[in-house]
């Protein structure tokens, strides 16, 4: 095993040279180190101005997603070891405007997330005194997988359509819409349909499937999108044979 490994880190300092460039750092190599540990070594011991997001270091907060040797990954869950002998190229997630160094702009994603109303919508709220909404294990299984999303945006970085059609609402937002649509306590499917049934909702997706491959939480957003397309299509053809029913 080598003593050190080189990292080629994407740098963008708008107030500095203004142009993005790659800066090479040599960090100590440890078998148990993740890419994030190497970045923290740089930040703590070599260049305190290096900017990137991270928080939990255990694959839960979803903030340390970056592009490592071309692949979108959570840097806290990606060992240095498979990239030996290096150099290892670390870039921000593709498809998002860069604010500084490895920090991307989340505004577009957060806006899209809000548009699909990822919360439980009830026509009439029950008061707490009426007790909780009960759910069977089967009813929970219907949406549990989609509820595992940590908003890391790796799926957006991997999606070629999001890069080509920036209006596309995108994999995680659709998976989260389905997380609530398929929840037995929710009554908001009609409202979400307004957004999902747009061309830039589910129909922009051509089922490339990269989103489900890169997802660190096994959410399967591609499956969520396909399932929504099937349901929306069946609804549409049903509305043709049943007049008065809107698709």
């Amino acid at each position, binding site marked *: 095993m080598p003593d050190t490994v080189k990292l080629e880190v994407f740098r963008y300092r708008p107030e500095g040279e203004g142009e993005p460039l790659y800066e090479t750092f040599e960090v100590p190599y440890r078998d148990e180190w993740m890419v994030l540990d190497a970045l923290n070594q740089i930040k703590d011991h070599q260049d305190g101005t290096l900017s990137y997001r991270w928080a939990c270091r255990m694959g839960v907060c979803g903030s340390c997603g970056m592009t490592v040797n071309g692949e979108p990954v959570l840097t806290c869950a990606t060992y240095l070891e498979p990239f030996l002998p290096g150099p290892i190229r670390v870039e921000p997630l593709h498809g998002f405007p860069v604010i500084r160094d490895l920090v991307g702009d989340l505004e577009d994603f957060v806006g899209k997330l809000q548009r699909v109303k990822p919360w439980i919508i009830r026509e009439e709220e029950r008061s707490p005194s009426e007790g909780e909404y009960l759910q069977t294990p089967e009813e929970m299984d219907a949406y549990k997988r989609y509820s595992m999303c940590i908003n890391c945006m790796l799926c957006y970085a991997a999606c*070629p*359509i999001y890069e*080509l*059609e920036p209006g596309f609402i995108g994999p995680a937002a659709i998976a989260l819409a389905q997380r609530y649509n398929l929840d037995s306590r929710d009554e908001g499917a009609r409202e979400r349909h307004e957004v999902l*049934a*747009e*061309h830039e909702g589910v*129909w922009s997706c*051509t089922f490339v499937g990269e989103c489900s491959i890169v997802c660190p939480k096994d959410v399967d957003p591609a499956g969520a999108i396909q399932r929504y*397309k*099937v349901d*929306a*299509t069946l*609804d*549409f*053809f049903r509305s043709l044979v049943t007049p008065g029913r809107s*698709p």
Partner: protein
Amino acid sequence: MRRARDPFFWGLFSAGGMLTALLLPALFLVAAITAPMGWFGMTGYEEWVALASHPVTRGGLLVVAFLAFFHAAHRFRYTLYDGLQLYHLDALISIVTYGVAAALTVLAAALLILVV
């Protein structure tokens, strides 16, 4: 209008994909292997013509052809649209791809009625 267009063509696309994936290998197996080999009691051309000219078979073949053509058209439309990034030509691309599929469907219907 656009809201209706997406599920309509995607419906044809997905139904066509599923049907051809299921049926074409079977059709190929029967038409190209088991029938010529005379397995399972199927023998010659005449039997095939008799089978194919039954109204139910004709109708079925037309449905398969229709969906397969629209499946291919939709795939090709998105190959041009996303693959070559011809977004501004979407209307033209749609008319040409779905138009060709429609024309081929009419041709298939004509062949099924006139020839078989």
